[in-house]
């Protein structure tokens, strides 16, 4: 049986004016377990707290009920008070007789009655409380960043600068991501490579950062502070330790018919290749699909020409197991496939291209050495039509309902660059709305229209057709309210962007929840925007939602600061109010696992003793370091095996009973 003390606060006149505090203290003495009660002017004051501490010592109290303001206000205070007096802090219950009683009721008799009932409910609950002890776990002081684009690089640099080790896992042969493919960046028009490549070098040179390029995460186990990750280092066919990056192998490789991924397939590359000149690491990869040696067994030119003896055809995938305290998802994006957009003739006409292809065409290191030429005949286009919102803000099946956010700005950029380089070129932009909410963004767009004379047409393009080597673009001009037909030489489609397809499997692996578009969801959309609901998993960059480079870098830094906050702790103290499974009652049905937003529940075969029967059963196990204590599992559990500490079924039902008595 508990020995409970009830402490009724006056809160000056805030409570005492409408509640007879003496009567509440008196009435609670008749409740089961209550051995002491008192009232005091300000319970939260030092005087009040010492009265509590003294009473705990004097009466050997096992728990206290404080009838005062909202637990949201002073629950933590009174828990500390209890702890100081040697009581378990979870043996404290608060009866909210201020916000939910004295402040809303004017009649003192009624207010007192209600306060007595609220105190009774708190006592009833406390009678079923048990001491709770928060679990502790170690924090491994290393972070994993998945994705080596600008988001991943920035997060890694920020974490590493704070003194923690960081590994970057990147699935392609080089870090740099999509930003490395861009020509200029809006709204300042500085060159992407000029601002990105130094960061890439910083990342590779940083003593705290390890790069795993051409690698993928294979599996993960563990929880916040203690993840164990298996990384598959795919076989490059080149020994990175020996390779000097001289490039002779690439030059001599006889197989030069593979499409360059980096150049969006606009030109070819050799079978042994580096994606682009500033790739990091500067170590080639053998693309086994197009390598003659791997396909036919005959060739071996690269091996012959390599003076460093770095070519290793027998190299195999390697699995590396590493431990991490925190994991950052920075998996980025890709433009959507335009397979289902036949109206724009993307698959049929080589001169209908995507904006990312246009970036490569503009780029001095691109397939046309920076000259804007039509892919079909390598002639400079005289009229270029840009089409915005291709697949964004779509109402049709194949599109995306969201706004891709970056297209308005990069299209203005493309239009401007074109007009600057080729003032004779006519440039048209079809748009639904032009969205420019960013620093210096609207000024940038207005420059495109006012200074550069880009023709913006509000309306959508209905159809593109090829006629005698020209592209006939049919669209509507909603402002002039008429159909327009433009004879163009090139059409650039601002394809919607979507999360990288690897995100989904990673999401499943890390139990990081995703929205219907496969963007990772935040722990809270406003207040915890860089954390995944799963503790210890953070989000950086476009994998969380469309954003431009400044936003990505800002978010990457925010994610880094969260990681640093976690890694700076030696131990994590959990919330003891977590779910717990009563194993003999558990059916092992997996229902609880399905509703857990944190992936805190797993199943294990345990020896269960139930009514003298010993058998191995599949039972649910809660990882207390991951569980956040929402209670979703407790209600979905049909057998009542799952309960929530601090808010158990019996505690809540005791409150119900006390209120309804």
């Amino acid at each position: 049986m508990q020995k409970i003390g009830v402490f009724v606060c006056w809160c000056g006149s805030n409570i005492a004016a409408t509640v007879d505090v003496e009567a509440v203290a008196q009435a609670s003495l008749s409740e089961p377990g209550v051995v002491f009660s008192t009232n005091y002017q300000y319970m939260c004051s030092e005087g009040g707290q010492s009265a509590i501490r003294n009473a705990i010592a004097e009466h050997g109290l096992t728990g206290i009920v404080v009838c005062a303001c909202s637990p949201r206000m002073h629950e933590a205070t009174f828990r500390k008070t209890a702890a100081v007096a040697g009581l378990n802090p979870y043996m404290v219950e608060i009866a909210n007789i201020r916000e939910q009683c004295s402040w809303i009721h004017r009649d003192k008799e009624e207010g007192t009655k209600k306060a007595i009932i609220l105190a009774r409910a708190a006592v009833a609950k406390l009678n079923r409380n048990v001491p709770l002890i928060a679990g502790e776990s170690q924090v491994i002081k290393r972070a994993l960043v998945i994705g080596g684009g600008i988001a991943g690089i920035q997060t890694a640099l920020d974490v590493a600068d704070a003194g923690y080790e960081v590994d970057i896992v990147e699935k392609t042969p080089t870090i740099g991501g999509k930003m490395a493919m861009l020509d200029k960046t809006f709204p300042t028009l500085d060159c992407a490579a000029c601002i990105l490549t130094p960061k890439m070098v910083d990342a590779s040179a940083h003593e705290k950062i390890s790069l795993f390029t051409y690698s993928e995460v294979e599996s993960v186990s563990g929880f916040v502070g203690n993840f164990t990750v298996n990384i598959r280092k795919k076989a490059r066919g080149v020994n990175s330790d020996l390779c000097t990056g001289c490039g002779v192998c690439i030059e001599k490789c006889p197989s030069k018919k593979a499409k360059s991924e980096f150049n969006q397939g606009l030109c070819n590359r050799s079978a042994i290749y580096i994606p682009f000149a500033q790739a990091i690491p500067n170590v080639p990869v053998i693309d086994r699909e197009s390598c003659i040696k791997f396909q036919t067994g005959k060739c071996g030119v690269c091996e012959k020409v390599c003076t460093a003896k770095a070519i290793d055809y027998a190299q195999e995938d390697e699995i590396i197991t590493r431990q991490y305290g925190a994991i950052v998802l920075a998996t980025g994006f890709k433009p959507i496939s335009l397979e289902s957009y036949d109206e724009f003739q993307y698959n049929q006409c080589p001169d209908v291209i995507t904006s990312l292809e246009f970036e490569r065409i503009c780029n001095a290191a691109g397939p046309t050495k920076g000259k804007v030429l039509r892919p079909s005949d390598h002639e400079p286009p005289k009229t270029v039509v840009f089409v915005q919102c291709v697949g964004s803000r779509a109402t049709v099946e194949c599109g995306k309902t969201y706004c891709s956010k970056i297209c308005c700005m990069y299209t203005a950029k493309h239009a401007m660059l074109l007009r600057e380089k080729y003032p004779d070129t006519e440039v048209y932009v079809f748009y639904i709305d032009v969205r420019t909410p960013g620093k210096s963004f609207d000024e940038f767009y207005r420059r495109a229209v006012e200074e550069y004379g880009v023709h913006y047409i509000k309306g959508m393009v209905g159809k593109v057709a090829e006629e005698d080597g020209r592209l006939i673009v049919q669209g509507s001009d909603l402002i002039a309210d008429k159909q327009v037909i433009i004879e163009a030489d090139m059409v650039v489609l601002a394809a919607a962007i979507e999360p990288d397809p690897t995100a989904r499997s990673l999401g499943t692996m890390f139990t990081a929840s995703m929205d219907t578009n496969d963007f990772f969801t935040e722990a809270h959309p406003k207040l915890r925007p860089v954390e995944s609901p799963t503790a210890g998993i953070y989000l950086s960059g476009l994998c969380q939602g469309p954003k431009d480079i400044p936003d990505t870098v800002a978010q990457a830094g925010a994610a880094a600061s969260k990681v640093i906050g976690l890694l700076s702790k030696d131990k994590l103290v959990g919330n003891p109010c977590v779910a717990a499974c009563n194993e003999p009652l558990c059916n092992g049905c997996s229902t609880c696992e399905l509703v857990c937003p944190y992936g805190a529940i797993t199943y294990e075969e345990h020896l269960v003793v139930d009514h003298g029967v010993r058998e191995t059963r599949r039972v649910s196990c809660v990882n207390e370091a991951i569980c956040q204590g929402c209670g979703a599992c407790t209600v979905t559990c049909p057998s009542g095996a799952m309960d929530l500490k601090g808010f158990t079924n019996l505690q809540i039902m005791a409150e119900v009973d006390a209120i309804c008595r």
Partner: protein
Amino acid sequence: MPINEEGAAFKPLIVAFCCNWCSYAGADLAGSSRLNYPVNVKVIRVPCSCRVNPLFILRAFQRGADGVIMCGCHPGDCHYTSGNYFARRRMALLFSMLDYLGIERGRTRVEWVSAAEGAKFANTMNQFAETISALGECRRLEDIRCVESEI
């Protein structure tokens, strides 16, 4: 207005389950804004609306509650991201079932109340109490044996 045995005006007993993060804070705000609502509304704090087990609701009716309301964060704002979505399905089905069993649908309610919606909390409770006052006492699920017993 219905009159009870002692001849006083009937004041329905209402149990309100409120999630800690939004609705309980909303109820607190109603208090600090000094907004009146009926004295017989009693709030039980739960971490999330998804912690509200149908058992608790049945238990309240069993013990003589005249109405039960569940309040949680607005859909999309759940502190635990998805708890209120599960709760929404559970309560939609449970309350429809109670109605099917003859427990008037006015006696059960789900309301999303944010921490900023003190006024909404008070208004909701006032309206709810009014609806239930019109329905009178709820005896249909009450267990007469339970009046003084304990588990």
